[in-house]
Each structure stands twice: as structure tokens, then as C-alpha cells.
């Protein structure tokens, strides 16, 4: 394989899509369909609408056993322009509390300082604390507790004070 097999091509496209900031990208061929959207509403299944179904393609190479990253709880478009986005350092399960039953590290509206713990990402029993890279207020929590997230996926939006 010379670096341009299907997973590579798809990954490049996904990377470029995420970086571009555009809203929507849709490809359709008779036996292949790919639909990318940053809007939460677009991810909901719609009756009789084939959505993002690469028919004859192998699964993408990064952990397809994981459930697709859940739709953001807050659409990216509603975030303030100067929001600081805290991203997942690696693929894993997103935990908002240090252990089951404990209080969440932060809630929307919490004041945080640089270095404060915001959540845990667990992969294969390795827990990594994700810390605030800026001081400010938690404006939005972008992922549901317990969801599988991809490396680089936005988790929190902070607004600097």
C-alpha cells in the first residue's frame, strides 16, 4: 500500500473538513455515500434518508468499534468567536467526574483556572486528566458523559474572563 488506500483518503478528507470550518460536505455515488456536517440536527437519523453510509468501503481505520462520536450538545455555530476549545488528547471514554457517583469536575458556568482538571479520558484503563488551557468560564460542555470521543474532538468551550 503506497499510502493512498481508502482509510487514508477518508482520514485526509475528515482532517481537512474539520480544519476548514465549513458546515457541510456531501458525496454520493451509486455505491458510496458520505455526508459530513457540523450541525447537531443533521446527525439525527431521518426516515428513509441514507446518511453517511459508505456501502462498500471498509470501516475507517481509527477504532470503528467505537460508537460514532456523539453529536455536540451545543452546535459549534452558537459558540462565541473567542471561545477556547478544549480538545480530547486521545481517543477514549469521556468522564466528567473523577469516579462514578462523584460530582462533576465542572459545570456550565464554572470558573476555571489554567491547569484545573475538566474531565478524564479513559482508554484501556489509562486515565488522562484533561486540564484547562486558559482561565475563564465554562461556556459549553460539548460531549455527553460516558461517550467515546476521538483524539482532537472538542470537549469544552471556555470563555476567557
Amino acid at each position: 500500500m503506497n499510502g493512498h488506500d481508502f482509510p487514508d483518503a477518508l482520514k485526509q478528507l475528515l482532517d481537512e473538513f474539520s480544519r476548514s470550518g465549513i458546515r457541510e460536505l456531501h458525496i454520493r455515488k451509486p455505491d458510496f455515500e458520505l455526508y459530513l456536517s457540523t450541525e447537531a440536527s443533521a446527525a439525527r437519523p431521518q426516515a428513509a434518508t441514507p446518511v453517511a453510509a459508505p456501502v462498500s468501503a471498509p470501516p475507517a481505520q481509527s477504532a470503528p468499534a467505537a460508537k460514532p462520536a456523539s453529536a455536540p450538545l451545543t452546535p459549534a455555530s452558537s459558540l462565541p468567536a473567542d471561545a477556547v476549545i478544549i480538545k480530547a488528547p486521545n481517543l477514549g471514554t469521556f468522564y466528567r467526574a473523577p469516579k462514578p457517583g462523584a460530582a462533576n469536575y465542572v459545570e456550565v458556568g464554572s470558573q476555571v483556572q489554567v491547569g484545573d482538571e475538566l474531565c478524564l479520558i479513559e482508554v484501556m484503563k489509562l486515565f488522562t486528566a484533561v486540564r484547562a488551557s486558559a482561565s475563564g468560564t465554562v461556556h459549553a460542555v460539548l460531549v455527553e458523559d460516558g461517550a467515546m470521543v476521538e483524539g482532537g474532538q472538542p470537549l469544552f468551550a471556555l470563555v476567557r474572563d
Partner: protein
Amino acid sequence: MPIKRLFVANRGEIALRIVRAAQALNIETVVAVSDADRDSAAARLADRSIVLGPAAAAKSYLDPRLIVHAAKESGCDGLHPGYGFLSERAILPRLCAQHGIAFVGPEPDVIDALGDKLRARAMAGAAGVPLVPGSECVASSADARREGDRIGYPVLLKASAGGGGRGMVIANNGDEAEAGFHKASAEAVAAFGDGTLFMERFVPEARHVEVQLMGDGNGQVLHFGERDCSVQRRYQKLIEEAPCAAMPDHLRRQLHESAVALAASVKYRNAGTAEFLFDVQRQEFYFIEVNARIQVEHPVSEAITGFDLVQEQIRIAGGAGLSVSQQDVEINGHAIECRINAEDAARDFMPSPGRITRWEPPQGPGIRLDSHMSAGAMIPPFYDSMVGKLIVHGSDRADAIARLADAIDNFVVEGVPTTLPLHRAIIAHPDFVENRIHTRWLEQVLLPDYGKKAA
């Protein structure tokens, strides 16, 4: 009554290993899977698989009610818990007993007693097993200082309910003992919901040795030799060997006798392992704990004795008793196992779930691979990172090392990084070749250099 249909309450390589052992005994198998493991090798090989719940272990492999319900409703009369997950939780055998299923493991009361380190220590002492000099419960930082002064530093503060190194702190003097008490107790509360601690002498350069046991539940216990598992990182074993080549024969005999006496004193049933610290300087061994289950590293004991321990534990659970006697157990040659983890040792052992694109294991005499992997297989991010165990058997330790080096060199894995290159570096190191290792050797000696080379 012999088990006719066995429920396998585990995943990964051990689920596959149990299915194969059951098939060799003409026992039907039902494998429990999570949503992420529907297509696992064990599920494909078994007569049936049942999806318990979603990928998260808490909602599948760690829910004893779902497991016993699935076992009962699928007509199973036996249940094998494997290792990890619920294997040492007494609730599982209790539920099995309530629903007429034979549990492949000890009685629940024995699991409870051995799972509590303080009780296990008291039982070991009563059976005449050497204990590391230590304390009863320590209730305060002042207690910790007093006990530390009495035992002699360095000392280890440990969680009574603990395991896997969590809630463990080393203290080199009285001040550190006081500070360590607060830290270890807080960690123990967070990890186990119980802050009870005890203390013991810390042996800085100890080896980890353990005895493979098999009991029939009526007081008869056999040993299958000892293992040396001194190559560890953060209290997790990476390489295991059998026998312990660093131990003289007279000590080895005492070690086996101690382990058998302890297990016999509780009429232990099933495969189990008594773990010891071996202080090479003092030529003494001290009891650590008993693991009341089959262990990851059981294949090295199988290699040097020629017995199938998983088949034996299934037969015993079915009421057959031991199929061999102690004089049938002869030790031949030397075996080494390395745990292949999907981790990037050059990046601080970052777990690396993903898809295996090439998987071409070595073959040849004296090589065994216990793995559920194959080309195209997926390593899900939800569980531990072990993808297989490579076991070699040679005429002696040097021969086994040479075979293992060859086997690793001929093992092609692509798609995700694994610890195979690290294993290759460990077994090439003069300290390993000359058997001068201890439980902190990997972290103190090899890994600092390994990091530099990789960078």
C-alpha cells in the same frame, strides 16, 4: 457432576483459551460478549455467544446478574470467570450457587477471605508461611510512624482492600511514613472505598515469585512449580518465567511447601497462585497474597509441567477431583512468556486501540501463542490492552531466551504499536540475560535508556 455446557464470562485471549480447553473436554461453550466483542475469536469458536450489554464493561462483563442470567437461560451448568473482571468477586459464585451453576473457582467465602489482604496475611501466618515483617491495621499517621520505626525503613504503606499498586506508598523515614499515610489512605478511599492501611518492610531489590496451585476443595492441593515475574512496570507484569532460576533448590522446596500448606488450610478449590517477595540478599521469601483464579501467566507453568491447568480447573469444578498427584508433576526445562500489549512503549506506554492490519506470529518447536488477534481484528478501546501472550519453552533459561528472541524477530504485527520491540530489548539486556533483575529493574534501569533511544 461433570459440566456439560460451560459459560465463559470473560473476553480476549482467556475467553478463547477457555473455549478451547472446554472443547478438548467435549464440553459445549457459551461465550458472553459485549456489543464491542460480537465478532471476537472466542464468540466465533464457541457453540453460542450472547450479547450481554453495551461495550462499557460496567454494563456487560462487570454485571454479575446479567452474566448469571445469561448462563442460566442458555442452559449452562458451569461458569468460568477467567481472570480480571468478576473472577475474584464472591458475588459471582454466590449467584451461581443460587441458580445451580458450578463455578470454576473457589468457594465464595474463600474468595472473600483471600481477597482481604489482612485476613489473607493472618491465614498465611497461621499456616506457617513466612510473612514480611509488618503491621496490623494502621489507623493514623502517628501509628504509621510508630510502626515504621519498629519494622525498620524503608516501609511500604498498602491498602487493605487494594491490588495492582493502587494506594501504595513507600516511606524512607518517620516523616515520610506520616505523609505517606495520608496519601495512601486517600488513594485507597478513592480506589476501593476503604481507607484501611497496613505496613510492611519494603525490600528495594526484590524478585516476585509465585507458586501455581491446584486444589480439589477437600484439602488436597498440588503445586505446579513456581514462576518468576520480576519484570514489571507499575506493578504490572510484562515478562514471566518458570521456574525461578535465581532460587536455590532448598528455598524452592520451602516455597512450594508454604504455598501448599496455606491453600490446604482453607481447603482451596480451583487453580490459584500464592505470590511471594523473594529477597535475594537475605535469601528469604515473604508471602504477598493469593490470587484465587487462573492467572495470565499460567502457560509458563503448563510449558514446564506438560499439564493443561484450565482443563484441570474445569474438571475439578465438575466434581472430578485432581487428575494427577504431586509425584506426576515434573519440571522440565525453562519457559518464558511475554505479554504483548497494544501500547507504545516509546510514548510512555500510551494505549493504542485500533485495527491490526498484519498479524503473522512465529511458528516452531517450543513456541506457543495465546491470542485472540488476527489480521483485520479490531482492538477496542474499552478494555485492557493485552493482545496476546508469546510463550517459549527451551531446555534451559539461555535456550528459552534464544528461542524468544528468534520468535519476536519473526513476529510481524502491523496496524498498531505493541510492546514486542520493548520485549526484544529487555531480553537482550545483559541484566536480563545474566538474571540480575528485580521488580523495579525495568523502571529504574531499562526504561530510562529505552526512552532515550526511541526519542
